[in-house]
């Protein structure tokens, strides 16, 4: 009864074929859903929301004087990925992260990729997040991006495409883990026999990755999580991860640098710290090197890193790897460093900074997606076909003023997924953010965070702009 009126329309629908028949890996869940009625489904939705609120699984809305905490909306209809499809994605992501780590090692070292003319020097040196302080700095095990959140979308034919790599401080992984918990509570009888791969080992895998990159391959290193503090919108996640890993969560003021070593203040004196999983941006890390007005960071930290007495994850300067201009070169990087063809496709990208592409962008803004190269969280984006005249004019002026800061992409109709809209299921656009850990080996939690644009027709999935999320099931089998 739930899906009687459901229309896949002209989009790629994750659950249904164009003719309305269900894809085989969704058969099981469809059967289960049919056992429910609207009322019980609604009750479950409310129970889950309430439990998130009770547990304080919330994010803080910035600019709200009351410090309002909101629940990240959760949709109870899971997104399902069959086994071979996932294996393919996993291979593609592994290849990509390897190339990105090699790229960072190269540009903060020999710069072969520039010297051999693969990427123009200009694009790297003009990057807002290219960190000149990192030049020549060796990082343990040559790993720069320890945690990467790569956003994947599926186009009209269902091909997985990389939309962007979040190589700085990707967040959201706690929602992935909490979503699974919520699903298990709401539908305990869905799971036995469904063959869903577990996601619960993420914190353990993260801790292993952190320990693996300890300075001088130290054994049993002391790891901590550095948070900007409890006012940060992702504070819940910081606590959640620290608790799951069993490590201390520290603020800048808890750490001090003495003789190029980092210590935390404890009730029994100073204790040395080896690895810092930092959830604050480069700019705020060390006021003695970057922003002197920041009191979130630890003065002297950068030189402690230079001295090789402490390591941080992710390394400084990884932001250049998720610069949207550099993104366009990732396929070339894969060729250059690994000698392989890229497994995952990505979205064709035009540069406003290139004279021949600039004109095309300026005169076709209503047909393109325009993105600022260094923004995250869904900010600094213009979706031409959906934008008003005045928005387009505003962006045109921005692009003209600073072409380096903008790229353009053809709009991709993200795939859709049945999503509960209060009374019935309707198709809503989704993406997928898998979390990739680089350590002794590359580890990817099966699936990732599926984000869904809850507003009808919207393509923006960010939590700050009307997005919600779903549990993501990777099956042991083809379903």
């Amino acid at each position: 009864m739930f899906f009687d009126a459901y229309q896949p329309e002209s989009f790629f629908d994750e659950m249904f074929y164009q003719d309305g028949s269900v894809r085989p890996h969704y058969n099981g869940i469809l059967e289960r859903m049919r056992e429910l009625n609207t009322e019980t489904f609604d009750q479950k939705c409310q129970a889950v929301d309430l439990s998130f609120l009770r547990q304080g699984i919330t994010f803080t809305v910035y600019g709200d004087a009351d410090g309002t905490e909101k629940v990240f909306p959760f949709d109870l209809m899971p997104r399902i990925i069959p086994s071979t499809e996932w294996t393919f994605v996993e291979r593609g992501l592994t290849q990509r992260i390897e190339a990105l780590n090699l790229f960072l090692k190269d540009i903060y070292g020999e710069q072969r990729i520039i010297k051999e003319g693969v990427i123009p020097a200009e694009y790297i040196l003009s990057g807002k997040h290219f960190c000149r302080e990192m030049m020549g700095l060796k990082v343990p095990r040559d790993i720069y991006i320890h945690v990467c959140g790569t956003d994947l979308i599926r186009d009209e034919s269902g091909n997985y495409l990389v939309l962007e790599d979040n190589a700085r401080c990707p967040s959201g992984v706690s929602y992935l883990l909490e979503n699974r918990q919520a699903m298990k509570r709401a539908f305990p009888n869905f799971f036995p026999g469904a063959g869903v791969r577990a996601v619960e080992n993420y914190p353990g895998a993260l801790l292993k990755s952190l320990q693996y990159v300890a300075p001088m391959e130290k054994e049993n290193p002391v790891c901590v999580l550095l948070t900007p503090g409890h006012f940060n919108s992702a504070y819940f996640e910081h606590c959640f991860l620290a608790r799951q890993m069993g490590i201390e969560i520290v603020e800048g003021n808890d750490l001090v640098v003495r003789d190029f070593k980092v210590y935390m203040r404890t009730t029994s004196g100073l204790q040395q710290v080896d690895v810092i999983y930092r959830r604050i941006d480069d700019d705020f890390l060390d006021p003695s090197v970057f922003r002197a007005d920041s009191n979130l960071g630890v003065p002297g930290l950068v030189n402690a890193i230079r001295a090789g007495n402490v390591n941080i994850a992710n390394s400084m300067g990884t932001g250049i790897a998720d610069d949207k201009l550099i993104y366009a070169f990732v396929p070339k990087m894969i060729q250059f460093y690994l000698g392989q063809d890229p497994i995952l496709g990505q979205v064709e990208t035009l540069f406003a900074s290139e004279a021949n592409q600039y004109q095309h962008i300026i005169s076709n803004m209503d047909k393109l997606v325009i993105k600022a190269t260094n923004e995250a969280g869904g900010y600094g984006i213009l979706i031409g076909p959906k934008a008003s005249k005045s928005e387009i004019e505003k962006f045109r002026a921005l692009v003209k003023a600073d072409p380096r800061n903008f790229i353009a992409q053809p709009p991709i109709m993200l795939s859709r997924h049945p999503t509960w809209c209060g009374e019935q299921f309707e198709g809503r656009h989704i993406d997928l953010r898998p979390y990739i850990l680089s350590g002794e080996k590359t580890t990817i939690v099966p699936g990732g965070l599926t984000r869904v644009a809850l507003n009808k027709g919207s393509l923006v999935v960010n939590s700050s702009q009307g997005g919600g999320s779903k549990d993501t099931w990777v099956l042991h089998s083809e379903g």
Partner: protein
Amino acid sequence: MLSRVADSLYWMSRYIERAENIARLLDVNLQLQLDFEELDDKKLKAYWEPVIRAAGEEELFYEIHERANSRSVTDFLTFEARNKSSIMACIMAARENARMIRDQISVEMWECLNQAYLFLKSKNALNVWESGPYEFYKKIQDYSHLFLGLTDATFSHSEGFYFMQVGKFLERADKTSRILDFKYHVLLPSIEDVGGAVDAVQWSAILRSCSAFEAYHRQFVSAVSRDKVHEFLIFDDHFPRSIKSCVLELDRNLHAISGCPLSKYSNQAERLSGQILSDLKYDSIEDAFSFGLHEYLGKLQNRFIAIGKAVYDTYMFHPRLDLAAEIAAQQQQQQQICEKPF
């Protein structure tokens, strides 16, 4: 354990204890008021003003409210977030401290505080309060007791727990002394009333403010009197809210943190708590009377403040600077002036 975490545990515990005490104090006073006939504005003011004074927020109160009466005072001490001693402010502060150390406490403890907070913030809270303050204040006390129980049952009894206990007992000892002292400010209709019926009712209210009414009567079959109430709430060995039992627990937990044997001390906080404890052990109620009750309680309160400071200095303090000063100093991060070439 991180010093900041110890600090937050300590304050989380103190604030929830404080909220409970305010709830009890207000509850009892509201009930007590029912026993009086014909309270005019003036009498109401005289009745409620000490309560505000005890909270030390007189000035703020008169900024917000014109008159001190049951409604304005209870509202001020319950919901007014600007008043740092209101239940709302205490629960918010307890939750804020808990939020800072969420990874350190149990999920149950966090959810309990979060629920108390959500309840206070909800419209429902006001409805419950309007329809009967008793139910409302009962609920606040229940949250506090639930929190105590959950802490006991879900939180490791190790260093962090001891810091929480120190916070709780220090707060409780202090509040019991203030509730006793509170009676000192309450005016009786006339001097003849001392020892009379009104006086007895008021002393009973003091006992109830400390949840001590039943325990007291098991101890003393006699009627409620000023002397006996003091003896009970200061010197009783077993009642968990008497100052002496609180200090006993405080001392025990302070020693548990450092691992120092009870008979010795290893820092200033332990030395001070040991001193108070020994005074309470060897003083009698007669000593308190001859010293002056109000003065005796005042002296205790000052010593509790000194212990709080000593705990801070010992465990949250670091070589060179204390945490607060260091945070302030960090905000004073400055750039060196640079040389100008010519």
